[in-house]
């Protein structure tokens, strides 16, 4: 079913009410950087139709260059599609201002090297910027009020970086910096959290920590999480649904068990893997073949 998912959904729900029930609703989205060129248009994303349900954790996976990060940028309104449209809780994303979007959607980029020695607390407080009060006499200073500080401390506690509050972001380790950036996004009090490879470059413990915190936020606050990941196993264990991209097209959407099959992974990634059930969760577990196995199996 998952392989033909787009075809099924476009027919059934077209009214505004059903679109509003989705956190995101993408219809026939085409996107490329610059202008379309060449015979096939040189699209980074082609005819992407995808729904994100409120309160779910959706994983976007796919090989290098399949358009994962571009898709996330479209969702964050950092780029605009050339054709097709995207609604955010029923409202057209193109019609929302950058600030309105930022009050609903928080985005954590993959690369977050920091050059300037802000403290962790200052960095987290920057997440309050979309909620600032405009006043004529503040001269752009806009001092944070009690609500801002409360939101920042809360998100720092959630990401367990309270003890780092006075440290400089330039001095943090990769894992600490990643947690700071997620805390900054949470301080935005978003309904949606978009993360680009949040676990890349992190060790095992930090990978687990970040995934379980995201899971907990989804359970307790109904946060919708869209996560781009290279790690098929993390996606399989932690995401409710997975969208698999290949060459800019969504080639499968569904639960991990529906999407992760040996045939599909061979088709998408071009290599044969072993899939069995995870001993604790029963969800699909992907293993690379050992060197002794013939690759054409």
């Amino acid at each position, binding site marked *: 079913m998952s392989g033909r998912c787009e075809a099924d959904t476009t027919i059934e729900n077209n009214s505004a009410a059903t679109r509003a029930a989705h956190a995101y609703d993408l219809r026939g989205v085409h996107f490329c950087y610059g202008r379309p060129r060449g015979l096939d248009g040189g699209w980074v994303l082609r005819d992407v139709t995808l729904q994100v349900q409120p309160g779910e954790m959706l994983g976007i996976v796919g090989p290098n260059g399949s358009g994962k990060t571009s898709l996330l*940028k479209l969702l*964050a*309104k*950092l780029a605009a599609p050339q054709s097709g449209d995207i609604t955010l809780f029923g409202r057209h994303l193109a019609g929302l*201002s*950058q600030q*309105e979007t*930022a009050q609903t*959607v928080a985005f954590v*980029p993959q*690369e*977050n*090297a920091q*050059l*300037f*020695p*802000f*403290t*962790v*607390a*200052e*960095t987290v*407080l*920057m997440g309050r*910027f*979309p909620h*600032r009060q405009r006043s004529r006499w503040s*001269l*752009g*200073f*806009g*001092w944070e009020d*009690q609500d801002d*500080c*409360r939101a*920042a*401390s*809360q998100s*720092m*506690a*959630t*990401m*367990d970086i*309270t*003890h780092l*509050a*006075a440290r400089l972001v*330039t001095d943090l380790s990769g894992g600490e910096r990643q*947690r700071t*950036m997620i805390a900054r996004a949470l301080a935005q009090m978003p309904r949606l959290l978009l993360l680009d490879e949040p676990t890349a470059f992190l060790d095992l413990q*930090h990978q*687990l*920590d970040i995934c*379980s915190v995201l*899971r*907990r*936020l989804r*359970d*307790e*606050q109904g946060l919708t999480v869209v996560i781009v990941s290279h790690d098929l196993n993390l996606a399989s264990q932690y995401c409710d649904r997975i969208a698999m991209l290949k060459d800019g097209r969504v080639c499968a959407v569904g639960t991990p068990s529906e999407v992760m099959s040996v045939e599909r992974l061979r088709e998408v990634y071009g290599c044969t893997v072993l899939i069995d059930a995870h001993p604790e969760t029963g969800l699909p577990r992907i293993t690379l073949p050992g060197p002794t196995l013939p690759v054409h199996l």
Partner: protein
Amino acid sequence: MMPSAGHPTSSPAALTSPSLTPNLMQPGPPITAIDRPLRGAILTRSRWCAVMGALLLLSLILTMLCLQVGTQYIGMGHIVGLLSSALFGTASEPETLRTTGVILLQVRLPRVLLGFLVGSCLGAVGVALQALMRNPLADPYVLGVSSGAALGVAVAVLFGIGTTALALSLLPVCGFAGSLVALLVIYRMAAAYDRLPIHSVLLAGVILNAIFSALIMFITSIMEPNRSFGMMAWLMGSMTAPAHPVLIALAAYLLVGLVLLVKQVRVLNILALGEEPARSLGIDTERTKRVIFLLSALMTGAVVSFSGMIGFVGMIIPHAVRLVVGADHRLLLPASTLVGGMFLMVADTIARTLFVPSEVPVGVITALAGGPFFVYLLVWRKDRLA
């Protein structure tokens, strides 16, 4: 992270409830008030006032000290008396003080104030450009913005703009045009690499500097010898005492630039995070860039048209201030403004008193102080310039 993080369901309530009861698993003292962890870690209004108050006081003291020294020493008592009589019109000074009064009010005071204004302007522009380009080495001199402004002024002088007060107050406009061209070229060159990597920005600056210097040398070479000599002296960064209306015009340019720049401080904070995070936080980055480019060009143009090319102030000062007061631009920008002013005022005082009666161009002093610092940053702190 929690030790129990492998089991997501073990302690959910302690982490997200708004009242945040003391979390026993957290290292360090228990949290009682919700905003306790932020205390001392963020810039508060009281710290802002304390730092700015101290810097203002220090600027005042240094100004008085710089007014004292020169070819003729003037005592503090005389300075206070002369200044108050000039301000409040109680002209009752004895005959012996008349020449001292002329030296102080017509020569030394305008020069000291010019030094302060120019330095503060360079400090503020340095802060803005560093945040905008996300490059801790950015500075109007290094990027070639100053030489762009110098070229604009040189062209105006070549075509005989004259030396009336009105003409002199219009020179900043020519400088503005020149520095704007330089900034736009740099930005286009560096943006060809998608984001603005530090080294490509610096390379763009080197190339621009070379081109503009060649053009300026060409202009100087076709001028009459006596005018070209004046031009060379100005290019090296000089601080000849300006007439009062010119000083006021300069102060007006700088004040407008500063006020508009200060309106962007919180946006500068977020731009320093990176362009994509800034846009995802709701900032119109393209518009902000245009505003900051225009303001930087305006202020650099004004400064260069009056005092020539004074290097490295815009780079050293923000660095040093950032080390002490932190990276928050709400404090960094105004503090760098005051510290830059003090730095250049003192440097100019050294320049005019070191080899009395002859003078060292102040640009020589700042370059001798700033050049080695630049090399230090580039070589020993390269880990911070990733």
